[in-house]
C-alpha cells in the first residue's frame, strides 16, 4: 500500500469515494466508509499486493463495511420501530450530490437502478474489476454476477432510452 505514490494514492481514494457515494448516497457516510476501509486495510496490509489486486481488495473491504453498516442500521430501525418510531425510507441523495445527479441524464438513469445493480456496474464497467473480483467483492457467486450484470444493463438501457419516465429525484424546496 505504501508503494503507491501520492498521485496513485489520491486516485485510488477518489475511486473508493465514488463507489462509497453511490452506495451510501451521503457524502458524510461515504467519507466514513472510505476512512474505515483504509484503516482496516492498513491494519491487515501484511500481504503484498500489486496495484490491481490492491484495488479489488479495497473495494471488497469497503463493500463489506457498507453491508455491516446496513445490517446495523436495519437492526437499529427494528429497535426504533419497536419503540414506536416509524422506519424511514431513505432514498434521496444528501448534500451536493443530488444536484450533480440531477444535472446529468445519464446519472439519473443510473441512480434509478437497484443498489446491487449499481454496485456491480460500478465495479465492472467503471472500475474495471474482473467478474471474479466483482464476485468476491460483492460476496456473490460468479453466476449471479453474470445474471445481475445482464439485468442491470438491460435496465439501464430501458431507463436511458426506453419509456421516458419522470425523474425519480426531485429537489423539494
Amino acid at each position, binding site marked *: 500500500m505504501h508503494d503507491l505514490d501520492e498521485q496513485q494514492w489520491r486516485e485510488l481514494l477518489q475511486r473508493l469515494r465514488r463507489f462509497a457515494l453511490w452506495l451510501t448516497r451521503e*457524502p458524510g457516510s461515504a*467519507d466514513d466508509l*472510505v*476512512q474505515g476501509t483504509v484503516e482496516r486495510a492498513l491494519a491487515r496490509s501484511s500481504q503484498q499486493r500489486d496495484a490491481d489486486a490492491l484495488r479489488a481488495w479495497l473495494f471488497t473491504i469497503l463493500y463489506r463495511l457498507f453491508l455491516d453498516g446496513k445490517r446495523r442500521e436495519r437492526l437499529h430501525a427494528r429497535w426504533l420501530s419497536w419503540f414506536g418510531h416509524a422506519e424511514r425510507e431513505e432514498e434521496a441523495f444528501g448534500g451536493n450530490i443530488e444536484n450533480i445527479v440531477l444535472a446529468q441524464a*445519464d446519472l439519473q438513469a443510473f441512480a434509478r437502478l437497484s443498489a446491487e445493480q449499481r454496485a456491480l456496474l460500478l465495479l465492472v464497467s467503471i472500475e474495471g474489476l474482473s467478474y471474479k473480483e466483482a464476485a468476491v467483492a460483492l460476496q456473490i457467486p460468479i453466476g449471479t454476477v*453474470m445474471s445481475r450484470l*445482464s439485468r442491470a*444493463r438491460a435496465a439501464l438501457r430501458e431507463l436511458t432510452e426506453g419509456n421516458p419516465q419522470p425523474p425519480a429525484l426531485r429537489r423539494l424546496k
Partner: protein
Amino acid sequence: MTRLIPSEDELHAYVDDRLTPPRRAEVQAWLAANPQEAARIDAWRNDARRLRAALAGFGDQPGAAQLDLGQVQRRLRQRRQRRLASAAVLLLALGVGGLGGWQARQVTLAGNELPMADAVQAHRLFAGSEALDIQASDPTQLRDWLGRHFNRVGQLPDLTGYGFQPVGARLLSNEQGPAALLVFQDRAGQRISLFLRSPGQHYERMPQGQRVDGQLEARYWSHGAYNFALVSAADDVRGAGVGEALRLGL
C-alpha cells in the same frame, strides 16, 4: 457453427473486454453477421462509456476529506495504544476489586472464625505437654507415622537445619475429621508444632497467610488434600524459614 454463437455471458464479456483474443475475434465476426445483436451490444457499450464520462471525477467532490496515509497510520497506532491502556486500567480495576473483595471476605470470616484457630488451640493444649501419642526423636520415625495416618501428604522435611528435633506427635480429630499435631523442639526447649487436617467449611481453598494470636504466631497454607499450620512463638525469627521448608516439602 454452434460454437460460434456467443452466449449472453460471452456478449457481456465481449463488452468488458474479458474474452480471449481468438474468441473475441469469433464473436466480432458473429456480430458482423448479426447487426441486430451488434446494435444491442453497441448500446451497452455506449451506456458504459457515457456512465464512465459522467462519473469521472465524481469521487472528487469539494469538501471531500483528504486522507493522508501516514496520518491514518498514526491515528491507528494511537488508538491501539489507547485500547491497550484501557485494557490495563480495566485489569487493574478488576484486580483491585477482586483483591478488595477477597480481603473483605477474609475480614468477614475472621469475625466468625480465624483461619486454623484449631491449630493454635492444639498447640496450646498439647505442644507443651508430654501427652503425645508417640515419642520420636528421629525424623524418619515421625515421617513414617505421618504417612501411616495421612496417606496423601508429602515428605516431612528435616528441620535439624533450623535447630529443631522432633519430639512426638498426637492424633486429634475435630468436625473436619482427623488431624495431626507434630511437635518439634530446639536445644533451648522452645517448641513449635505443625498441625494438619482436612480443609474446613470456610477455608476450602485457604490462601497462604499468617497471623499473630497472643504469644503465638500461625503460618497457614493449603496444599493437596490438607490445610497446614505452623505454630511458633511470635518472636521466633526461625518461623518464616521453617514454615517455608514445610510448605515446600509437604
